[in-house]
């Protein structure tokens, strides 16, 4: 009996790579993984091919694509040249806007990038300094390491260097919420709060403010007018297997981009 089990295991081990070879492996940014999982599921249903998605973070995803540990890497930030080698292709599959949001009762409708940056640095503390009523500003931010916070800090230049490390310049007195939902609840319940969330998460419970006079809409992000946006990038080796390329083609097809839009992100095609 033991021998039979052993034999079966050995055969299984030998066969499994053959089965696995058809699987497309994808790893990287947690934000991209969110929409990638939905895409993978639909792709599996329509094309009947396996896709395995792991969320490990943008930096890990870029490294995985470069090393070849995953066929496809995902990143929710711009990739630095030093992180790539000449054979890696970068493909933008969607865009995600970050909305600076305030409570519905707040009279402020528009802020400049500099004003938002100063609010988050703790240099502007009162709504009257930016044209609102004379009440203190309650600053709400995401936790350290969150992709949304990383992108927001990068775009709004909310970074400084301490001991040779790049760290956040957001005031430590800011309230911290973990997740878009938490930020939404705090801002929706506090008339003096300002927070930032993924544009796809904005609903009627709070209001996205115009940045530099430009409304946070899908169209304005697609044209590049609205500045607080980040690309969802996939990285792939030039010589990646055929089925990885097929999956990317599916994402960029009408069906794939439809799913991107229905998940609340902005289509690129």
């Amino acid at each position, binding site marked *: 009996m033991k021998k039979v089990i052993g034999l079966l295991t050995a055969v299984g081990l030998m066969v499994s790579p053959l089965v696995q070879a058809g699987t497309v492996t994808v790893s990287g940014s*947690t934000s991209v993984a969110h929409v990638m999982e939905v895409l993978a599921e639909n792709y599996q249903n329509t094309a009947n091919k396996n896709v395995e998605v792991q969320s490990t*973070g943008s*930096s*890990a995803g870029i490294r995985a694509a470069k090393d070849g540990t995953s066929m496809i890497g995902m990143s929710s930030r711009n990739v630095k040249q030093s992180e790539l080698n000449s054979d890696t292709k970068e493909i933008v599959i969607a865009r995600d806007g970050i909305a600076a949001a305030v409570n519905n009762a707040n009279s402020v409708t528009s802020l400049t990038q500099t004003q938002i940056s100063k609010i988050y640095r703790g240099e502007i503390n009162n709504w009257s300094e930016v044209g609102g009523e004379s*009440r*203190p*500003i*309650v600053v709400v931010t995401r*936790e*350290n*390491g*969150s*992709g949304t916070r990383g992108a927001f800090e990068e775009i709004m230049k909310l970074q400084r260097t*301490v*001991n*040779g*490390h790049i*760290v*956040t310049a957001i*005031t*430590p*007195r*800011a*309230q*911290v*919420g*973990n997740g878009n939902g*938490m930020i939404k*609840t*705090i801002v929706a*319940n*506090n008339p*003096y*709060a300002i927070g930032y969330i993924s544009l796809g998460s904005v609903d009627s419970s709070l209001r996205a403010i115009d940045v530099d006079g430009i409304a946070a809409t899908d169209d304005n992000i697609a044209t590049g007018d609205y500045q607080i946006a980040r690309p969802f990038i996939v990285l792939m080796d030039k010589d990646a297997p055929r089925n990885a390329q097929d999956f990317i083609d599916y994402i960029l097809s009408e069906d794939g981009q439809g799913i991107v839009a229905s998940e609340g992100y902005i289509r690129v095609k």
Partner: protein
Amino acid sequence: MSTTSKARAQGLQLAPAKNYDWKELFFHLLFLASAMIGVASVTTIGWFVFQEGLPAFKEAGVLNLVFGREWLPPALYGILPMIMSTLISTAGAVIIGVPIAILTAVFLAELAPKWLANIVRPAVELLAGIPSVVYGFFGLIIIVPAIETIFNIPAGNTILAGIIVLAIMILPTVITISETSLRALPPVYKEGALALGASHIYTVFKVLIPAARSGIFTGVALGVARAIGETMAIIMVMGNAPAMPGSILEPARTLTANIAMEMSYATGIHSSALYSTGIVLLVFIVLLNASLLFLNRKRSY
């Protein structure tokens, strides 16, 4: 055969040693194994947390980490603000929660008519079963706006909100254990005090509560442990700002909240620093239990 060896042989016959009582042995081992699961778990968790947390201590230095005032990963890993907010919120919860709990326990054990006790006791026990995320939501919707209105501050997500939620959360633990230890007192204590002419209330405060203090201390210690360890509800109501709190009307982040909030994204030394936050937490719990043993060294009822 000499008489001595004969006697020895007879003695051997009497002893059941040849024949192991396997059933007895099995249950002995079963009890031992059950007792060891707890010990093994705490050892494994301790070893794991130290293993993961030590790199951060090496990188940042123990003093910089424990007494650092700034939390700026990946440059600075100071957790003093979080140690302070954990201590303040727990102390506040004990100051508010424990007197209420002890008075409730006395009421249930001594004063309440049976029908009323039968309403209060299940209510208290139900409180223990409510998940902490529900406490957090309750705090966010009821307590936080109330604090904003009462103190006229822009944001109610403050240490005070955390204290109130924690005070309610520790009630069932302290009440149940205190009531049990009050009920376990020999009736002669109460009878003796009443026979000497002491009033009922005087008896409660001067005889019964002091006599039951060992059980009450245990209840308080378990309550404190619950307050130190509470995470979800605290994340929802305390604002989680990693700055040193200036008063209880400012947002703050506790040690457990720090671990829970940043664990999902942290890598390298940052993740290790979160485990060292866990080490500090573990040290707190050990100190708490040690002081409990010290307070209870003279055991009474």
